Protein backbone atom coordinates (compact mmCIF):
# COMPACT_ATOMS: atom_id res chain seq x y z
CA UNK A 1 0.00 0.00 0.00
CA UNK A 2 1.37 3.37 -0.98
CA UNK A 3 0.27 5.50 1.93
CA UNK A 4 2.55 8.46 1.33
CA UNK A 5 0.89 9.44 -1.97
CA UNK A 6 -2.54 9.64 -0.37
CA UNK A 7 -4.08 13.02 0.42
CA UNK A 8 -4.64 13.74 4.09
CA UNK A 9 -8.16 13.38 5.38
CA UNK A 10 -9.37 16.68 6.74
CA UNK A 11 -12.30 15.58 8.87
CA UNK A 12 -13.96 18.98 8.87
CA UNK A 13 -14.92 18.66 5.24
CA UNK A 14 -15.89 15.05 5.68
CA UNK A 15 -18.73 14.71 8.15
CA UNK A 16 -19.30 11.02 7.42
CA UNK A 17 -15.68 10.13 7.98
CA UNK A 18 -13.24 7.77 6.32
CA UNK A 19 -14.58 8.05 2.79
CA UNK A 20 -11.16 7.49 1.29
CA UNK A 21 -11.17 4.01 2.77
CA UNK A 22 -9.12 4.59 5.91
CA UNK A 23 -10.62 4.15 9.37
CA UNK A 24 -7.43 5.29 11.10
CA UNK A 25 -4.51 7.23 9.78
CA UNK A 26 -1.73 8.32 12.07
CA UNK A 27 1.28 10.42 11.08
CA UNK A 28 4.21 10.79 13.48
CA UNK A 29 1.88 10.40 16.42
CA UNK A 30 3.89 11.05 19.59
CA UNK A 31 3.24 11.27 23.30
CA UNK A 32 5.74 12.27 25.94
CA UNK A 33 5.42 12.06 29.70
CA UNK A 34 8.14 14.36 30.97
CA UNK A 35 11.33 13.13 29.38
CA UNK A 36 9.87 9.70 28.63
CA UNK A 37 8.62 9.14 25.08
CA UNK A 38 5.82 6.58 25.45
CA UNK A 39 4.78 6.76 21.79
CA UNK A 40 7.49 7.83 19.41
CA UNK A 41 6.43 9.09 15.96
CA UNK A 42 4.22 6.22 14.89
CA UNK A 43 2.79 6.28 11.37
CA UNK A 44 0.23 3.76 10.13
CA UNK A 45 -3.13 3.34 8.43
CA UNK A 46 -6.03 1.03 9.10
CA UNK A 47 -8.27 0.36 6.13
CA UNK A 48 -12.03 0.47 6.46
CA UNK A 49 -13.41 -3.02 7.12
CA UNK A 50 -10.02 -4.35 8.15
CA UNK A 51 -9.28 -6.48 11.23
CA UNK A 52 -6.15 -4.78 12.54
CA UNK A 53 -4.11 -6.32 15.36
CA UNK A 54 -2.21 -3.83 17.51
CA UNK A 55 0.48 -5.82 19.32
CA UNK A 56 3.30 -4.97 21.66
CA UNK A 57 4.91 -6.05 24.91
CA UNK A 58 3.73 -4.62 28.24
CA UNK A 59 5.05 -1.07 28.39
CA UNK A 60 5.68 -0.76 24.63
CA UNK A 61 3.20 2.12 24.33
CA UNK A 62 0.03 0.40 23.05
CA UNK A 63 -2.30 1.74 25.70
CA UNK A 64 -1.01 5.29 25.33
CA UNK A 65 -1.49 5.08 21.55
CA UNK A 66 -5.04 3.76 21.91
CA UNK A 67 -5.91 6.46 24.44
CA UNK A 68 -4.85 9.08 21.91
CA UNK A 69 -6.84 7.46 19.12
CA UNK A 70 -10.07 7.29 21.11
CA UNK A 71 -9.69 10.87 22.32
CA UNK A 72 -8.78 10.25 25.97
CA UNK A 73 -5.27 11.69 25.74
CA UNK A 74 -3.88 14.56 23.67
CA UNK A 75 -0.85 13.84 21.50
CA UNK A 76 2.37 15.79 22.11
CA UNK A 77 3.10 15.80 18.41
CA UNK A 78 1.81 14.43 15.13
CA UNK A 79 -1.64 14.04 13.62
CA UNK A 80 -4.18 11.25 13.44
CA UNK A 81 -7.70 10.78 12.15
CA UNK A 82 -10.14 8.18 13.34
CA UNK A 83 -13.27 7.58 11.25
CA UNK A 84 -12.20 10.71 9.37
CA UNK A 85 -12.11 12.97 12.43
CA UNK A 86 -9.13 14.79 13.85
CA UNK A 87 -8.10 13.37 17.25
CA UNK A 88 -7.04 16.84 18.45
CA UNK A 89 -10.02 18.92 17.47
CA UNK A 90 -12.94 16.52 16.99
CA UNK A 91 -12.86 14.29 20.02
CA UNK A 92 -16.62 14.43 20.55
CA UNK A 93 -17.33 13.27 17.04
CA UNK A 94 -14.79 10.49 17.38
CA UNK A 95 -16.48 9.24 20.52
CA UNK A 96 -19.82 9.11 18.74
CA UNK A 97 -18.34 7.22 15.79
CA UNK A 98 -16.32 4.55 17.57
CA UNK A 99 -17.10 1.58 19.76
CA UNK A 100 -14.79 0.66 22.65
CA UNK A 101 -14.52 -2.48 24.69
CA UNK A 102 -11.91 -3.21 27.31
CA UNK A 103 -11.68 -6.38 29.32
CA UNK A 104 -12.20 -4.60 32.60
CA UNK A 105 -14.56 -1.67 32.22
CA UNK A 106 -17.34 -2.43 29.84
CA UNK A 107 -20.63 -3.49 31.35
CA UNK A 108 -22.29 -2.72 34.67
CA UNK A 109 -22.29 -5.92 36.73
CA UNK A 110 -25.25 -4.90 38.89
CA UNK A 111 -27.52 -4.05 35.99
CA UNK A 112 -29.34 -6.72 33.97
CA UNK A 113 -28.46 -7.57 30.39
CA UNK A 114 -31.41 -5.53 29.11
CA UNK A 115 -30.62 -2.56 31.38
CA UNK A 116 -27.02 -2.46 30.18
CA UNK A 117 -28.14 -2.35 26.56
CA UNK A 118 -30.69 0.40 27.33
CA UNK A 119 -28.11 2.42 29.25
CA UNK A 120 -25.53 2.31 26.45
CA UNK A 121 -28.18 2.93 23.81
CA UNK A 122 -29.17 6.05 25.75
CA UNK A 123 -25.58 7.22 26.13
CA UNK A 124 -25.11 6.86 22.38
CA UNK A 125 -28.30 8.86 21.83
CA UNK A 126 -30.35 6.13 20.15
CA UNK A 127 -34.14 6.44 20.12
CA UNK A 128 -35.97 4.18 22.62
CA UNK A 129 -37.85 2.27 19.87
CA UNK A 130 -34.57 1.72 18.07
CA UNK A 131 -32.93 0.44 21.26
CA UNK A 132 -35.81 -1.95 21.90
CA UNK A 133 -35.60 -3.37 18.40
CA UNK A 134 -31.80 -3.73 18.50
CA UNK A 135 -32.01 -5.37 21.93
CA UNK A 136 -34.23 -8.18 20.68
CA UNK A 137 -32.08 -8.87 17.60
CA UNK A 138 -28.90 -8.79 19.65
CA UNK A 139 -30.17 -11.14 22.36
CA UNK A 140 -31.41 -13.58 19.75
CA UNK A 141 -28.11 -13.57 17.84
CA UNK A 142 -26.18 -14.15 21.06
CA UNK A 143 -28.60 -16.82 22.28
CA UNK A 144 -29.24 -14.73 25.40
CA UNK A 145 -33.00 -14.11 24.99
CA UNK A 146 -33.90 -16.08 28.12
CA UNK A 147 -31.22 -14.23 30.12
CA UNK A 148 -32.36 -10.69 29.32
CA UNK A 149 -33.30 -10.00 32.94
CA UNK A 150 -30.29 -11.62 34.58
CA UNK A 151 -27.66 -9.49 36.24
CA UNK A 152 -24.62 -9.17 33.99
CA UNK A 153 -22.31 -9.83 36.94
CA UNK A 154 -23.71 -13.34 37.19
CA UNK A 155 -23.09 -14.32 33.57
CA UNK A 156 -20.08 -16.46 32.70
CA UNK A 157 -17.08 -14.42 31.52
CA UNK A 158 -17.31 -15.56 27.89
CA UNK A 159 -20.91 -14.38 27.62
CA UNK A 160 -20.07 -11.06 29.21
CA UNK A 161 -17.38 -10.56 26.58
CA UNK A 162 -19.69 -11.37 23.69
CA UNK A 163 -22.35 -9.08 25.14
CA UNK A 164 -19.85 -6.27 25.70
CA UNK A 165 -18.72 -6.55 22.09
CA UNK A 166 -22.31 -6.39 20.81
CA UNK A 167 -23.01 -3.39 23.05
CA UNK A 168 -19.91 -1.66 21.67
CA UNK A 169 -21.48 -2.08 18.21
CA UNK A 170 -24.94 -0.88 19.30
CA UNK A 171 -24.66 2.54 17.69
CA UNK A 172 -23.18 1.03 14.53
CA UNK A 173 -19.78 2.67 14.82
CA UNK A 174 -17.41 2.71 11.85
CA UNK A 175 -14.63 1.35 13.96
CA UNK A 176 -14.50 -0.61 17.17
CA UNK A 177 -11.49 -0.71 19.54
CA UNK A 178 -11.09 -3.96 21.47
CA UNK A 179 -8.51 -4.01 24.25
CA UNK A 180 -7.64 -7.63 25.11
CA UNK A 181 -11.21 -8.74 24.59
CA UNK A 182 -10.71 -12.50 25.08
CA UNK A 183 -8.53 -12.76 28.19
CA UNK A 184 -9.16 -15.81 30.34
CA UNK A 185 -11.90 -17.59 28.39
CA UNK A 186 -11.84 -21.15 27.11
CA UNK A 187 -10.50 -21.90 23.62
CA UNK A 188 -13.93 -22.52 22.10
CA UNK A 189 -15.43 -19.29 23.43
CA UNK A 190 -12.36 -17.38 22.25
CA UNK A 191 -12.94 -18.67 18.73
CA UNK A 192 -16.65 -17.84 18.89
CA UNK A 193 -15.65 -14.31 19.82
CA UNK A 194 -13.41 -14.11 16.77
CA UNK A 195 -16.28 -15.25 14.58
CA UNK A 196 -18.26 -12.30 15.94
CA UNK A 197 -15.32 -10.09 14.94
CA UNK A 198 -15.27 -11.53 11.42
CA UNK A 199 -19.03 -11.09 11.11
CA UNK A 200 -18.74 -7.42 12.10
CA UNK A 201 -15.83 -6.92 9.69
CA UNK A 202 -17.79 -8.60 6.87
CA UNK A 203 -20.50 -5.95 7.44
CA UNK A 204 -17.87 -3.23 6.99
CA UNK A 205 -17.00 -2.41 10.60
CA UNK A 206 -13.29 -1.82 11.13
CA UNK A 207 -11.90 -3.79 14.06
CA UNK A 208 -8.85 -2.55 15.97
CA UNK A 209 -7.81 -5.20 18.48
CA UNK A 210 -5.05 -5.86 21.03
CA UNK A 211 -4.26 -9.33 22.36
CA UNK A 212 -1.61 -11.32 24.17
CA UNK A 213 -2.68 -14.52 22.39
CA UNK A 214 -0.33 -14.84 19.45
CA UNK A 215 -2.58 -17.30 17.62
CA UNK A 216 -5.18 -14.54 17.57
CA UNK A 217 -2.67 -12.23 15.92
CA UNK A 218 -2.75 -14.68 13.01
CA UNK A 219 -6.52 -14.08 12.68
CA UNK A 220 -5.96 -10.41 11.79
CA UNK A 221 -5.75 -9.04 8.24
CA UNK A 222 -2.77 -6.93 9.27
CA UNK A 223 -0.85 -6.41 12.47
CA UNK A 224 1.56 -3.90 13.87
CA UNK A 225 4.09 -4.71 16.58
CA UNK A 226 5.18 -1.90 18.89
CA UNK A 227 8.60 -1.93 20.55
CA UNK A 228 9.85 0.96 22.71
CA UNK A 229 7.13 3.33 21.53
CA UNK A 230 7.77 2.73 17.82
CA UNK A 231 6.13 0.49 15.28
CA UNK A 232 8.80 -2.13 14.65
CA UNK A 233 6.84 -4.17 12.13
CA UNK A 234 3.65 -3.73 10.13
CA UNK A 235 2.04 -6.03 7.60
CA UNK A 236 -0.12 -9.11 7.13
CA UNK A 237 0.86 -12.07 9.34
CA UNK A 238 2.09 -13.89 6.21
CA UNK A 239 4.24 -10.93 5.10
CA UNK A 240 5.81 -10.57 8.54
CA UNK A 241 6.58 -14.27 8.86
CA UNK A 242 8.25 -14.21 5.43
CA UNK A 243 10.17 -11.05 6.20
CA UNK A 244 11.54 -12.39 9.48
CA UNK A 245 11.90 -15.99 8.28
CA UNK A 246 9.71 -17.09 11.19
CA UNK A 247 7.18 -19.91 11.54
CA UNK A 248 4.65 -17.95 13.52
CA UNK A 249 3.74 -14.41 14.57
CA UNK A 250 4.77 -15.51 18.06
CA UNK A 251 8.36 -15.94 16.82
CA UNK A 252 8.30 -12.56 15.06
CA UNK A 253 6.92 -10.94 18.20
CA UNK A 254 9.44 -12.48 20.57
CA UNK A 255 12.33 -11.57 18.31
CA UNK A 256 11.26 -7.94 18.07
CA UNK A 257 10.19 -7.52 21.68
CA UNK A 258 13.45 -9.00 22.99
CA UNK A 259 15.27 -6.12 21.34
CA UNK A 260 13.32 -3.68 23.53
CA UNK A 261 15.47 -1.48 25.72
CA UNK A 262 13.06 0.56 27.75
CA UNK A 263 9.86 -1.52 28.04
CA UNK A 264 10.50 -2.95 31.49
CA UNK A 265 11.94 0.23 32.91
CA UNK A 266 8.82 2.16 31.92
Amino acid sequence: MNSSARPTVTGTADATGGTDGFAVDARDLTRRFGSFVAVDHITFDVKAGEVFGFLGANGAGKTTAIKMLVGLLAPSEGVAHVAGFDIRTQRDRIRRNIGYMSQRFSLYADLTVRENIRLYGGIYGLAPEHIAKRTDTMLETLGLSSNADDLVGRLPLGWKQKLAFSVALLHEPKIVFLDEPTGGVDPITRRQFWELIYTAAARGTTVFVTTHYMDEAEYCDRISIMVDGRIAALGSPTELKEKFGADSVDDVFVRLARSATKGEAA
Partner: protein
Amino acid sequence: MTNAVEVRALGKSFGPVKALDDVSLDVSEGELFGLVGPDGAGKTTLFRILTTLLIPDTGSATVLGLDVVKDFWKIRSRVGYMPGGFALYPDLSVAENLEFFAAVFGTTVEKGYELIAPIYKQIEPFRDRRAEALSGGMKQKLALSCALVHRPDILLLDEPTTGVDAVSRREFWDQLGNLKASGLTIVVSTPYMDEALRCDRVALIHGGKILEVDPPHSIGARYTLPLVAVRGANRFELLQSLRKFPHARAVYLFGDELHYTDRRSDASPEAVAAELREYFASRGQEDVETRPIAAGIEDSFMELMGSAPPPPPRPTATAA
Protein backbone atom coordinates in the same frame (compact mmCIF):
# COMPACT_ATOMS: atom_id res chain seq x y z
CA MET B 1 8.85 -41.43 44.97
CA THR B 2 6.23 -39.94 47.24
CA ASN B 3 3.59 -37.52 46.08
CA ALA B 4 3.93 -33.86 46.91
CA VAL B 5 0.19 -33.40 46.37
CA GLU B 6 -2.58 -35.97 46.60
CA VAL B 7 -6.14 -34.97 45.80
CA ARG B 8 -8.95 -37.49 46.27
CA ALA B 9 -12.54 -36.98 45.09
CA LEU B 10 -12.45 -33.33 46.03
CA GLY B 11 -15.70 -31.36 45.80
CA LYS B 12 -16.53 -27.73 46.55
CA SER B 13 -19.67 -25.79 45.71
CA PHE B 14 -20.57 -22.13 45.94
CA GLY B 15 -24.37 -22.02 46.07
CA PRO B 16 -25.59 -23.85 42.97
CA VAL B 17 -22.17 -23.80 41.29
CA LYS B 18 -19.96 -26.84 41.56
CA ALA B 19 -16.53 -25.21 41.45
CA LEU B 20 -14.84 -28.60 41.91
CA ASP B 21 -16.64 -31.81 41.09
CA ASP B 22 -15.01 -35.09 42.15
CA VAL B 23 -11.44 -34.03 41.37
CA SER B 24 -8.58 -36.49 41.93
CA LEU B 25 -4.93 -36.10 40.99
CA ASP B 26 -1.38 -36.66 42.19
CA VAL B 27 1.68 -34.46 41.80
CA SER B 28 5.06 -36.19 42.28
CA GLU B 29 7.89 -34.64 44.24
CA GLY B 30 10.04 -32.44 42.01
CA GLU B 31 7.43 -32.34 39.26
CA LEU B 32 6.42 -29.26 37.25
CA PHE B 33 2.68 -29.84 37.06
CA GLY B 34 0.32 -27.71 35.01
CA LEU B 35 -3.37 -27.07 35.60
CA VAL B 36 -4.68 -25.88 32.25
CA GLY B 37 -8.14 -24.41 31.83
CA PRO B 38 -10.12 -21.21 31.31
CA ASP B 39 -11.50 -18.80 33.92
CA GLY B 40 -14.14 -20.50 36.02
CA ALA B 41 -12.69 -23.99 35.47
CA GLY B 42 -11.99 -24.46 39.20
CA LYS B 43 -8.24 -23.80 39.20
CA THR B 44 -8.33 -21.09 41.85
CA THR B 45 -10.66 -23.06 44.10
CA LEU B 46 -8.27 -26.01 43.97
CA PHE B 47 -5.30 -23.75 44.83
CA ARG B 48 -7.19 -22.22 47.73
CA ILE B 49 -7.95 -25.64 49.14
CA LEU B 50 -4.33 -26.77 48.72
CA THR B 51 -3.10 -23.61 50.45
CA THR B 52 -5.60 -24.23 53.30
CA LEU B 53 -7.53 -21.03 52.61
CA LEU B 54 -10.72 -22.90 51.82
CA ILE B 55 -12.20 -26.10 53.29
CA PRO B 56 -13.50 -28.69 50.80
CA ASP B 57 -17.12 -29.91 51.02
CA THR B 58 -16.20 -33.48 50.14
CA GLY B 59 -13.08 -35.55 49.53
CA SER B 60 -9.58 -34.98 50.89
CA ALA B 61 -6.21 -33.58 49.91
CA THR B 62 -2.67 -33.66 51.22
CA VAL B 63 0.25 -31.34 50.51
CA LEU B 64 3.74 -32.62 51.42
CA GLY B 65 1.97 -35.49 53.18
CA LEU B 66 0.00 -33.09 55.41
CA ASP B 67 -3.79 -32.94 55.45
CA VAL B 68 -5.16 -29.63 54.15
CA VAL B 69 -7.82 -29.46 56.89
CA LYS B 70 -6.17 -30.97 59.97
CA ASP B 71 -2.60 -29.83 59.38
CA PHE B 72 -3.33 -26.43 57.88
CA TRP B 73 -0.96 -24.58 60.17
CA LYS B 74 2.01 -26.79 59.23
CA ILE B 75 1.26 -26.54 55.51
CA ARG B 76 1.16 -22.75 55.45
CA SER B 77 4.80 -22.25 56.38
CA ARG B 78 6.02 -24.75 53.80
CA VAL B 79 4.06 -23.60 50.79
CA GLY B 80 4.96 -20.72 48.48
CA TYR B 81 1.76 -19.33 46.99
CA MET B 82 1.41 -16.78 44.25
CA PRO B 83 -2.30 -15.91 43.97
CA GLY B 84 -3.93 -14.75 40.75
CA GLY B 85 -3.47 -11.05 40.07
CA PHE B 86 -0.19 -11.22 42.05
CA ALA B 87 -1.64 -9.85 45.34
CA LEU B 88 1.16 -7.45 46.19
CA TYR B 89 0.76 -4.44 48.45
CA PRO B 90 0.41 -1.61 45.93
CA ASP B 91 1.53 1.18 48.26
CA LEU B 92 4.60 -0.65 49.52
CA SER B 93 7.82 -0.49 47.54
CA VAL B 94 9.43 -3.47 45.84
CA ALA B 95 11.85 -3.95 48.74
CA GLU B 96 9.14 -3.43 51.39
CA ASN B 97 6.89 -6.06 49.81
CA LEU B 98 9.70 -8.58 49.88
CA GLU B 99 10.66 -7.72 53.48
CA PHE B 100 7.03 -7.98 54.53
CA PHE B 101 6.60 -11.47 53.09
CA ALA B 102 9.89 -12.58 54.65
CA ALA B 103 8.81 -11.19 58.04
CA VAL B 104 5.40 -12.89 57.91
CA PHE B 105 7.17 -16.22 57.53
CA GLY B 106 9.59 -15.38 60.34
CA THR B 107 12.64 -15.13 58.15
CA THR B 108 14.70 -12.45 56.41
CA VAL B 109 15.37 -11.47 52.82
CA GLU B 110 19.06 -12.31 53.35
CA LYS B 111 18.27 -15.94 54.24
CA GLY B 112 16.20 -16.41 51.11
CA TYR B 113 18.32 -14.27 48.84
CA GLU B 114 20.25 -17.03 47.14
CA LEU B 115 17.08 -18.72 45.94
CA ILE B 116 15.36 -15.56 44.72
CA ALA B 117 18.44 -13.83 43.33
CA PRO B 118 18.10 -14.94 39.67
CA ILE B 119 14.62 -13.40 39.60
CA TYR B 120 14.89 -10.58 42.11
CA LYS B 121 18.09 -9.11 40.67
CA GLN B 122 16.15 -8.12 37.55
CA ILE B 123 13.86 -5.84 39.57
CA GLU B 124 16.28 -4.81 42.31
CA PRO B 125 17.24 -1.60 40.45
CA PHE B 126 13.62 -0.51 41.09
CA ARG B 127 13.60 -1.54 44.75
CA ASP B 128 12.22 1.82 45.93
CA ARG B 129 9.40 1.96 43.40
CA ARG B 130 5.88 1.33 44.68
CA ALA B 131 4.48 -2.01 43.52
CA GLU B 132 1.47 -0.32 41.90
CA ALA B 133 3.81 1.51 39.50
CA LEU B 134 5.43 -1.66 38.17
CA SER B 135 4.77 -3.15 34.73
CA GLY B 136 3.01 -6.51 34.50
CA GLY B 137 6.26 -8.39 33.94
CA MET B 138 7.93 -6.72 36.94
CA LYS B 139 4.95 -7.36 39.23
CA GLN B 140 5.13 -10.99 38.23
CA LYS B 141 8.82 -11.21 39.15
CA LEU B 142 8.23 -9.50 42.48
CA ALA B 143 5.29 -11.79 43.29
CA LEU B 144 7.40 -14.84 42.52
CA SER B 145 10.22 -13.51 44.71
CA CYS B 146 7.73 -12.96 47.57
CA ALA B 147 6.40 -16.52 47.17
CA LEU B 148 9.94 -17.92 47.32
CA VAL B 149 11.59 -15.78 49.98
CA HIS B 150 10.85 -18.22 52.84
CA ARG B 151 12.34 -21.12 50.82
CA PRO B 152 9.17 -23.23 50.53
CA ASP B 153 9.13 -26.96 49.68
CA ILE B 154 6.42 -26.53 47.09
CA LEU B 155 5.36 -23.63 44.90
CA LEU B 156 1.72 -23.06 43.97
CA LEU B 157 1.28 -20.47 41.22
CA ASP B 158 -2.21 -19.38 40.19
CA GLU B 159 -2.17 -17.94 36.67
CA PRO B 160 1.22 -16.22 36.98
CA THR B 161 1.29 -15.33 33.28
CA THR B 162 -2.21 -13.92 32.75
CA GLY B 163 -2.10 -10.44 31.23
CA VAL B 164 1.65 -10.67 30.74
CA ASP B 165 3.14 -10.35 27.25
CA ALA B 166 4.57 -13.25 25.25
CA VAL B 167 8.21 -12.40 25.96
CA SER B 168 7.79 -12.09 29.73
CA ARG B 169 5.78 -15.30 29.66
CA ARG B 170 8.64 -17.19 28.04
CA GLU B 171 11.18 -15.78 30.50
CA PHE B 172 8.92 -16.72 33.38
CA TRP B 173 8.71 -20.31 32.20
CA ASP B 174 12.50 -20.41 31.81
CA GLN B 175 12.74 -19.40 35.47
CA LEU B 176 10.27 -22.09 36.52
CA GLY B 177 12.46 -24.58 34.66
CA ASN B 178 15.47 -23.44 36.74
CA LEU B 179 13.51 -23.71 39.99
CA LYS B 180 12.37 -27.20 39.05
CA ALA B 181 15.98 -28.16 38.34
CA SER B 182 16.80 -27.16 41.94
CA GLY B 183 14.34 -29.83 43.11
CA LEU B 184 11.31 -27.71 43.92
CA THR B 185 7.84 -29.12 43.24
CA ILE B 186 5.76 -26.63 41.24
CA VAL B 187 2.04 -26.61 40.52
CA VAL B 188 1.11 -23.85 38.10
CA SER B 189 -2.18 -22.94 36.45
CA THR B 190 -2.61 -21.21 33.12
CA PRO B 191 -5.30 -20.42 30.58
CA TYR B 192 -2.67 -20.51 27.79
CA MET B 193 -2.66 -23.93 26.14
CA ASP B 194 0.82 -23.44 24.62
CA GLU B 195 2.33 -23.12 28.10
CA ALA B 196 1.25 -26.67 28.91
CA LEU B 197 4.16 -27.88 26.77
CA ARG B 198 6.59 -26.59 29.39
CA CYS B 199 5.18 -28.89 32.09
CA ASP B 200 6.10 -32.49 32.97
CA ARG B 201 2.41 -33.35 33.16
CA VAL B 202 -0.75 -31.36 32.78
CA ALA B 203 -4.32 -31.71 33.97
CA LEU B 204 -6.90 -30.27 31.61
CA ILE B 205 -9.64 -28.79 33.79
CA HIS B 206 -13.01 -27.39 32.77
CA GLY B 207 -16.27 -26.79 34.62
CA GLY B 208 -14.86 -28.15 37.88
CA LYS B 209 -13.88 -31.48 36.34
CA ILE B 210 -10.54 -32.92 35.30
CA LEU B 211 -10.80 -33.87 31.62
CA GLU B 212 -7.44 -35.61 31.32
CA VAL B 213 -4.05 -35.88 33.09
CA ASP B 214 -1.04 -36.73 30.93
CA PRO B 215 2.39 -35.57 29.79
CA PRO B 216 1.72 -32.74 27.30
CA HIS B 217 2.99 -34.68 24.29
CA SER B 218 0.72 -37.64 25.01
CA ILE B 219 -2.47 -35.62 25.20
CA GLY B 220 -3.04 -35.36 21.46
CA ALA B 221 -2.47 -39.10 21.05
CA ARG B 222 -5.92 -39.83 22.42
CA TYR B 223 -7.56 -37.80 19.67
CA THR B 224 -9.08 -40.55 17.55
CA LEU B 225 -11.05 -38.62 14.93
CA PRO B 226 -9.49 -37.52 11.62
CA LEU B 227 -8.07 -34.01 11.97
CA VAL B 228 -7.19 -31.90 8.93
CA ALA B 229 -5.54 -28.48 8.71
CA VAL B 230 -7.05 -26.23 6.02
CA ARG B 231 -5.34 -23.16 4.66
CA GLY B 232 -6.63 -20.66 2.09
CA ALA B 233 -7.19 -17.04 1.27
CA ASN B 234 -10.51 -16.08 2.88
CA ARG B 235 -10.53 -17.86 6.21
CA PHE B 236 -14.00 -16.77 7.30
CA GLU B 237 -15.50 -18.01 4.03
CA LEU B 238 -13.61 -21.30 4.29
CA LEU B 239 -14.85 -21.71 7.85
CA GLN B 240 -18.45 -21.30 6.78
CA SER B 241 -18.00 -23.73 3.85
CA LEU B 242 -16.35 -26.35 6.05
CA ARG B 243 -19.18 -26.21 8.58
CA LYS B 244 -21.57 -27.19 5.76
CA PHE B 245 -19.51 -30.25 4.82
CA PRO B 246 -21.80 -33.21 5.65
CA HIS B 247 -19.27 -35.06 7.83
CA ALA B 248 -18.03 -32.05 9.78
CA ARG B 249 -17.89 -32.52 13.53
CA ALA B 250 -16.02 -29.36 14.48
CA VAL B 251 -14.32 -26.52 12.61
CA TYR B 252 -12.16 -24.01 14.44
CA LEU B 253 -9.91 -21.09 13.63
CA PHE B 254 -6.37 -22.09 14.47
CA GLY B 255 -3.53 -19.59 13.99
CA ASP B 256 -3.20 -19.02 10.26
CA GLU B 257 -5.19 -22.18 9.46
CA LEU B 258 -8.47 -23.87 10.23
CA HIS B 259 -8.69 -27.21 12.02
CA TYR B 260 -11.38 -29.53 10.73
CA THR B 261 -12.47 -32.64 12.64
CA ASP B 262 -14.42 -35.30 10.78
CA ARG B 263 -17.12 -37.24 12.60
CA ARG B 264 -16.23 -40.57 10.88
CA SER B 265 -13.78 -42.26 13.24
CA ASP B 266 -12.98 -44.99 10.69
CA ALA B 267 -12.05 -42.62 7.82
CA SER B 268 -8.36 -42.14 7.02
CA PRO B 269 -7.17 -38.56 7.53
CA GLU B 270 -5.52 -38.60 4.07
CA ALA B 271 -8.80 -39.59 2.42
CA VAL B 272 -10.66 -36.86 4.34
CA ALA B 273 -8.07 -34.28 3.27
CA ALA B 274 -8.52 -35.32 -0.37
CA GLU B 275 -12.31 -35.22 -0.05
CA LEU B 276 -12.13 -31.69 1.33
CA ARG B 277 -9.98 -30.51 -1.59
CA GLU B 278 -12.61 -31.86 -4.01
CA TYR B 279 -15.34 -30.24 -1.95
CA PHE B 280 -13.71 -26.82 -2.17
CA ALA B 281 -13.01 -27.25 -5.87
CA SER B 282 -16.68 -28.10 -6.47
CA ARG B 283 -17.65 -24.85 -4.70
CA GLY B 284 -15.25 -22.84 -6.81
CA GLN B 285 -12.89 -22.20 -3.88
CA GLU B 286 -9.46 -22.70 -5.43
CA ASP B 287 -6.01 -22.79 -3.86
CA VAL B 288 -7.11 -24.39 -0.65
CA GLU B 289 -4.47 -26.55 1.01
CA THR B 290 -5.58 -29.46 3.19
CA ARG B 291 -3.33 -31.82 5.11
CA PRO B 292 -3.82 -34.37 7.87
CA ILE B 293 -2.27 -33.36 11.19
CA ALA B 294 -1.75 -34.73 14.68
CA ALA B 295 -3.86 -33.14 17.42
CA GLY B 296 -2.28 -30.72 19.86
CA ILE B 297 -3.36 -29.86 23.40
CA GLU B 298 -5.80 -27.19 22.29
CA ASP B 299 -7.47 -29.56 19.79
CA SER B 300 -7.85 -32.13 22.54
CA PHE B 301 -9.13 -29.60 25.02
CA MET B 302 -11.83 -28.40 22.65
CA GLU B 303 -12.83 -31.94 21.72
CA LEU B 304 -13.06 -32.89 25.39
CA MET B 305 -15.07 -29.74 26.17
CA GLY B 306 -17.55 -30.96 23.58
CA SER B 307 -17.78 -29.63 20.08
CA ALA B 308 -21.45 -28.76 20.44
CA PRO B 309 -21.99 -25.05 21.09
CA PRO B 310 -22.55 -24.49 24.81
CA PRO B 311 -26.15 -23.97 25.91
CA PRO B 312 -27.29 -20.45 26.86
CA PRO B 313 -25.83 -19.66 30.23
CA ARG B 314 -27.66 -19.93 33.49
CA PRO B 315 -26.87 -17.16 35.87
CA THR B 316 -24.18 -18.36 38.20
CA ALA B 317 -22.89 -17.18 41.49
CA THR B 318 -19.38 -16.01 40.77
CA ALA B 319 -16.89 -18.36 42.28
CA ALA B 320 -13.58 -16.78 43.15
